């Protein structure tokens, strides 16, 4: 019986090829060089087409942390071009919905919190270039990605995206009032400062390691998130004799876990039910068929049931309800922001990371140099992360 089961499974695999899994996490056809940027480039170049956006996301976060902003811009633009397309007729997505293909076969675009972060990083880069309206467009798109949650309480509830949308509007001479009101209503972690149009040093802060995906359920068909980790819960900025507290405003684990169910979750649940159902039917067919086949008078019926049971087992083995666990694995857990007004000149600044109680974390500080230009008037942007990957 065991042999029959095994051969049935193998036959199923060979015929349907549905159990074969693809894993974006596995190392591609290159050896790690030890240089994060070199590895990032290689990963993008060698990644299968369906995983390209995933690697562009990851690489752009790395590039941001390394200060390779031009490179990050190129990767994000490419990824956002794919993300901004219409995916109704995407054959890889259609196949991923099929009973015998796993979800991870589809072209990766990411869950909404991952898509939002791609727009957020691009927004920071536009701000660096002095293109405030394009930065604002990115923050709006970032918020837009979060707008169709099942529970509308959590729709578009990133604090910083609204706050930055309003700040950019205010700096462009408009009224950012609505945006700051929305941001204030969403703020759960800390109070937001009023807009200062004259602030010319803007600092984007990110802390910790963001949420991680894992598969739960009998077949790994349920997409779930492990909470992100971060010892740092904020920072203190010291520049030009000023000391400014930078709280964390947005929690990415919260954002990842408050979206409600996906349509794809229903598809995967149905696949899991189908897999269990055909498996049970196969077992019943094989067992009853084997019993009946022993009796000369019922042998034909028994063999028929046995064959049907085998088919059931093959189909069950080939059904693939596994959730797509590919994820942007170097996102932060917390996002923070500060804006300061400084006179034109060169400054050396220091960012100390602080824990939940406000105590400075030893050996974690980041120093930076910044030049505040007199003319043309443009904000100087500093991006600080407590990560270095």
């Amino acid at each position, binding site marked *: 019986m065991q042999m029959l089961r095994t051969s049935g499974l193998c036959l199923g695999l060979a015929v349907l090829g549905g159990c074969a899994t693809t894993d974006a996490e596995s190392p591609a056809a290159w050896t790690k060089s030890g240089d994060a940027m070199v590895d990032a480039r290689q990963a993008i170049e060698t990644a299968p087409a369906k995983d390209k956006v995933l690697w562009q996301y990851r690489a752009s976060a790395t590039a941001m942390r390394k200060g390779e902003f031009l490179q990050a811009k190129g990767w994000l633009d490419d990824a956002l*071009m794919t993300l*901004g*397309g*219409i*995916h*109704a*007729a*995407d054959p890889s*997505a*259609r196949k*991923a*919905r099929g009973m015998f293909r796993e*979800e991870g076969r*589809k072209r990766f*675009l990411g869950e909404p919190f991952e898509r939002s972060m791609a727009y957020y990083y*691009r927004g920071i880069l*536009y701000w660096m270039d002095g*293109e405030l*309206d*394009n*930065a*604002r*467009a*990115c923050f*709006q*798109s970032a918020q*837009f990605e979060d*707008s*169709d949650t099942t529970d509308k309480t959590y729709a578009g509830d990133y604090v910083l995206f609204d706050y930055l949308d309003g700040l950019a509007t205010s700096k*462009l001479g408009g009224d950012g009032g609505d945006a700051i009101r929305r941001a204030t209503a969403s703020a759960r972690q800390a109070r937001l400062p009023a807009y200062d149009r004259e602030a010319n040093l803007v600092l984007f802060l990110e802390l910790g390691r963001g949420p991680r995906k894992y598969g739960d359920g009998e077949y790994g068909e349920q997409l779930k998130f492990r909470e992100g980790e971060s010892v740092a819960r904020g920072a203190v900025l010291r520049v030009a004799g000023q000391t400014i507290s930078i709280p964390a405003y947005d929690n990415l684990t919260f954002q990842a876990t408050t979206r409600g169910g*996906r*349509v*794809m979750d229903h*598809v995967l649940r149905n696949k899991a039910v189908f897999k269990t159902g055909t498996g049970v039917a196969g077992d019943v067919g094989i067992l009853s068929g084997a019993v009946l086949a022993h009796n000369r008078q019922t042998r034909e019926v028994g063999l028929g049931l046995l064959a049907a049971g085998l088919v059931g087992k093959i189909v069950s083995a080939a059904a693939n309800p596994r959730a797509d666990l590919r994820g942007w694995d170097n996102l932060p857990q917390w996002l923070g922001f500060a804006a300061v007004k400084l006179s034109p000149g060169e400054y050396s600044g220091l960012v100390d990371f602080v824990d939940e109680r406000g105590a400075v974390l030893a050996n974690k500080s980041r120093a930076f140099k910044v030049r505040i230009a007199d003319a043309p008037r443009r904000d100087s942007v500093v991006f600080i992360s407590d990560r270095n990957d």
Partner: protein
Amino acid sequence: MNPDERGFVAGTGVESQDLVAVTDKMARSIVAVPVIQKAAAAPYVILEPVLNETRFPINKDMFLDRLRVQLSSKTQGKVRFLARERLAALEKERAAKQAGQFTSSANPNVQEFKGADYLLTGKLQGLSTRTSKGTSDYILYTFQLIDARTTEIVWEDAAEIKKQGLEDAAYR
């Protein structure tokens, strides 16, 4: 594929066919404005960057650049443009001529940089909706020609484009 055709790769944002359609429409509309058509001398126009208020980051200069090229080529000199975006380089060149560093075909100390008669600018505004089925984006493109002397808006026109994109269930 022509730039005014919708490609196989499409989104709900600002695309080349929108740029072509909008700037063509605006160029036709500006040419018909009496202050341009009946002007005794061709007016000088400067371009002021388009303001993007949509959720789509765009290369804003492309709108005005294409509009300028369309107007310059289709109106046979009825509208003339001043290269204000190159002012820094032009000032540097003039200063070098004034200092005798470069030769000059005319007296470099005479002010010859021209002032504008009109200012051409625009704004892109958007309204976006997302449902469980997909995304809908409406973009309103408005352009204005403003009299630099009186601040009067002598011409204004708009174009609007709405796009919808269904998303595969695998991405929802």
